């Protein structure tokens, strides 16, 4: 075999040598193809494995940790939440609508193959600045695609987040998270076991789309990858809706031994992973796989990433039943092979063997790389830049209005108006709140969900920033009154072969792990997306966190804005933030620098626990965490209906109003409950400060007795609410 062959498929010479050794002979073209996708970063995690193993993955609530199609956490009453997040960055860069749509389709399949009915989608998005036409085009297409798929299949998109930063120009991040609900007894797994059991392909027909998509996801976007554009697929939410109903019906009828979706690397990864988990083998005759196109080679059939397909191992004798259910939903199911006991992936074409590979060679023998890691030069440099001596650049009003008009901070209404966020009629907190909340029918419970990551923090200090991504998610969950349960993640980084990038990855994951340990939110699964680079630039390191929380009593759900006049507003946590890494510093000093505030996870945990305690007693009317833009922005968001007047005593107005520091939460309560809250805070030793009261149709802030802001609702509300819409409706 010419070296060109395996190199073009993405295998290094060393990897090829290892393949040869494992096979005990020269592999043929098809076998090299199978190895190349299974050993791609996307499927094998060859670079990230050594790092990911440090995540805490256990806890009494965890029913299924990493390793399956999605994680599962217990929520009592014999019910469980299934959830997972995944990236579709590269396809979205090239065909934003379809790239994003198929991202949603893929993550939903991961959830319903576990036996769960999907109940919600979230989307975490990152784009370059909207003043560039191409970024606008990508933003618009991606949002359209997420809505296009989720709306049609009928699963509400209840949350997500969007940031804009130049590092994402041309390499947007599109991470989709799906959440499902199931009864414990219906948990399904991606295993192939029971020698002689049939193996079936169900759902859509196989076409030539997306061949080598997994490999494509594992390279930088460049001129060369442009030619791999065929790696983009068109999604068919209608087909997936039918497939979902059929699969859930089969799982509930207990007809299956195992089931797995065909995502990246299609039939190759689904068959080898299912056999791998079942310690078995699989034999398939590829000529039996239903095809959409004629003349497809075994290689193309194995590597196709056609969407809306599943690989299913029914219990022996029940293949007719599988066929019947699929047919009733207007879909096909075809027996293509069987489970064997010899641990081989054996592929035939018209009865003639065309490939034979030991399954474990594909799933367990993939090379593991301990990449060199090096602290980048920028790290100490930016950290060393002094944050002293900055003066407020403009009037408080102008600064506030400018921050509210920053697309990263401004309301994302333009986005979530395009998403059906209510279908299923379970959505108790719609997008625009701090976290989405769904009721759990038949119980008093609610589940909360959010996605978060401030990548500027991660860039400036990957360890602290990684931890803060988890903290912010936990804050958002707690602000709707839910207890944080567990996370999934999507680790978006640049090219890990560069030691500086690998350092970011290593540090950020360590921070995520530490925060998960302290906050008791184990990692139940996730996804790694490396090589997010355009020529010359890596994206800011973005370990996206998707978190799930539980409300024991949905009646106690909290919203993030005040709904009457005369409510008392308090601050939990410290008054002053820091300018390091703040939105203010970036906008007004054109500087992304500084040493982030010291991480104090224990303290943050105390604050969140206290918040939940207050809410458990029914003492709160609203809660909102302080994030980008600092206290003033959070106050504006919280009082967007009634206004407020607030008094602060501080030695540093700039840091108090616009500095950033996680672990600070605004809460509100009725006049009648104010004293009770104060005494509970005193007892618990938690820092609590009375700020003011809602009402008056203006936001008025006094600092040390003198008025520094008095802006009417009519002025700031439209800025917050309409900025993104105006940008998107404008012509350039």
């Amino acid at each position, binding site marked *: 075999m010419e070296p060109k062959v395996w190199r073009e498929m993405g295998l290094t010479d060393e990897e090829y040598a290892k393949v040869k050794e494992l096979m005990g002979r020269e592999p043929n073209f098809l076998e090299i193809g199978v190895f190349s996708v299974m050993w791609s970063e996307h499927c094998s995690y060859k670079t990230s494995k050594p790092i990911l193993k440090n995540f805490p993955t256990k806890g009494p609530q965890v029913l299924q940790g990493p390793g399956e199609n999605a994680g599962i956490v217990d929520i009592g009453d014999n019910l469980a939440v299934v959830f997972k997040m995944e990236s579709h960055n590269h396809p979205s860069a090239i065909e934003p609508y379809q790239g994003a749509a198929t991202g949603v389709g893929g993550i939903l399949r991961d959830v319903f193959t576990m036996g769960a009915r999907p109940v919600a989608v979230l989307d975490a998005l990152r784009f370059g600045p909207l003043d560039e036409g191409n970024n606008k085009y990508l933003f618009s297409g991606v949002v*359209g695609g997420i*809505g*296009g798929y989720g*709306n*049609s*299949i*009928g699963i509400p998109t209840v949350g997500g987040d969007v940031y804009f930063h130049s590092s994402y120009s041309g390499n947007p991040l599109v991470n989709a998270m799906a959440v499902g609900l199931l009864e414990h007894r219906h948990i399904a797994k991606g295993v192939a076991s029971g020698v002689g059991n049939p193996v079936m392909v169900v759902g859509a027909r196989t076409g030539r789309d997306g061949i080598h998509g997994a490999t494509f996801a594992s390279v930088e976007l460049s001129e060369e990858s442009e030619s791999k554009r065929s790696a983009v697929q068109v999604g*068919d*939410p*209608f*087909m997936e*809706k*039918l497939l979902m109903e059929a699969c859930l019906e089969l799982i509930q009828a207990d007809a299956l031994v195992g089931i797995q979706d065909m995502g990246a690397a299609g039939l190759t990864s689904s068959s080898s992973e299912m056999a791998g988990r079942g310690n078995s083998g699989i034999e398939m005759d590829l000529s039996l796989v239903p095809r959409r196109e004629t003349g497809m080679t075994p290689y193309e059939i194995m590597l196709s990433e056609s969407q809306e397909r599943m690989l299913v191992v029914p219990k022996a004798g029940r293949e007719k039943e599988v066929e019947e259910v699929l047919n009733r*939903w*207007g879909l096909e199911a075809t027996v293509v092979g069987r489970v064997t006991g010899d641990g081989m992936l054996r592929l035939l074409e018209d009865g003639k063997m065309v490939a034979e590979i030991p399954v474990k060679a594909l799933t367990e023998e993939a090379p593991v790389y301990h990449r060199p890691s090096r602290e980048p030069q920028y790290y100490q440099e930016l950290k060393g830049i002094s944050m002293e001596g900055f003066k407020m650049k403009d009037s408080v009003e102008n600064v506030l209005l400018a921050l509210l008009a920053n697309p990263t901070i401004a309301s994302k209404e333009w986005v*979530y*108006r*395009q*998403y*059906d*966020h*209510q*279908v*299923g*009629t*379970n*959505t*108790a907190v*719609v997008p625009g709140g701090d976290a989405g909340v769904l*009721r759990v*029918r038949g119980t008093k419970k609610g589940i909360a969900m959010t996605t978060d990551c401030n990548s500027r923090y991660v860039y400036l200090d990957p360890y602290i920033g990684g931890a803060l991504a988890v903290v912010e998610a936990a804050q958002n969950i707690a602000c709707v009154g839910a207890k944080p349960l567990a996370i999934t993640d999507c680790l978006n980084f640049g090219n890990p072969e560069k030691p500086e990038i690998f350092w970011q990855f290593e540090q950020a994951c360590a921070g995520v792990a530490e925060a998960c340990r302290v906050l008791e939110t184990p990692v139940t699964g996730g996804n790694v997306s490396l090589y997010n680079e355009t020529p010359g630039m890596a994206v800011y390191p973005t370990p996206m966190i998707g978190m799930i929380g539980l409300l024991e009593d*949905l*009646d106690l759900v909290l919203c993030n804005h005040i709904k009457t006049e005369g409510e008392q507003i308090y601050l939990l946590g410290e008054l002053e933030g820091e300018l390091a890494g703040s939105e203010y510093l970036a906008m007004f000093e054109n500087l992304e620098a500084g040493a982030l505030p010291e991480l104090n996870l224990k303290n943050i945990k105390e604050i969140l626990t206290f918040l939940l305690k207050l809410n458990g007693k029914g003492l709160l009317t609203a809660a909102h965490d302080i994030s980008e833009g600092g206290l003033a922005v959070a106050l504006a968001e919280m009082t967007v209906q009634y206004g407020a007047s607030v008094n602060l005593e501080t030695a540093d107005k700039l840091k108090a109003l616009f500095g950033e520091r996680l672990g600070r939460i605004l809460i509100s309560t009725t006049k009648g409950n104010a004293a009770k809250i104060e005494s509970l805070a005193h007892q618990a030793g938690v820092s609590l400060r009375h700020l003011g009261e809602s009402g008056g149709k203006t936001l008025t802030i006094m600092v040390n007795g003198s008025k520094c802001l008095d802006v009417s609702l009519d002025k700031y509300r439209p800025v917050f609410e309409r900025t993104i819409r105006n940008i998107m409706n404008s012509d350039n």
Partner: protein
Amino acid sequence: MKIGIVRFPGSNCEVDCLEAWRVAGEDPVMIWHQETSVKGYDLIVLPGGFSYGDYLRTGAIARFSPIMDDVIRFAKSGGLVWGICNGFQILTECGLLPGALLRNAGLHFICSPQYLRVERTDLAFTGEYRQGQIIQIPVNHGEGNYTVDDEGLARLKANNQIVFRYVTLEGEVTDQGNPNGSRENIAGIVNKEGNVLGMMPHPERVVEESIGGVDGKGMFISILKHWERRTQHGA
């Protein structure tokens, strides 16, 4: 009351409708699109969703489902038929209601609470509301822009067939209150006889306070009371 909800491939609000009826105290039956008879039902609901993916045009393919011939017969013989969102689109496609639903004027899908004015309360569907009452019911569609030609519009008006209009909070019929460009802010219409209603907004989404309001519940209660009155008179 015997209520049937037709489930097309791609429907996705059929369970929401079922649950809403349960809140109102009824327990409907799901009717698979391949069935051929709706005999014995008192009301047929065509739910929201994306039947057949809404490919080609919304409702265009569903209209040829086996069940639809009998739904059309049922409607023509005076049976109550209620199409919500995709159901409305199917009703216009099959000619039970005039006009058509085009892509939203703003070209985007819209999911949003919307104020409606109740234009007619003498119908089986709306008896619980006051004439001119402003209610808040969410819309959720990409193609809800109702269009009808001048003649058709004149007929709708002459026969008093307009049931809901999109309005502002103050009840004004203006462009500002119109989410999708619908002609004369039309959100829902009935046939001349008053037994077939099509509407874009989703009343089944607002029947419980904990998930966003109760303004839609009146429609379910209206239908039940109408049916009770009728069966009492009939008996």
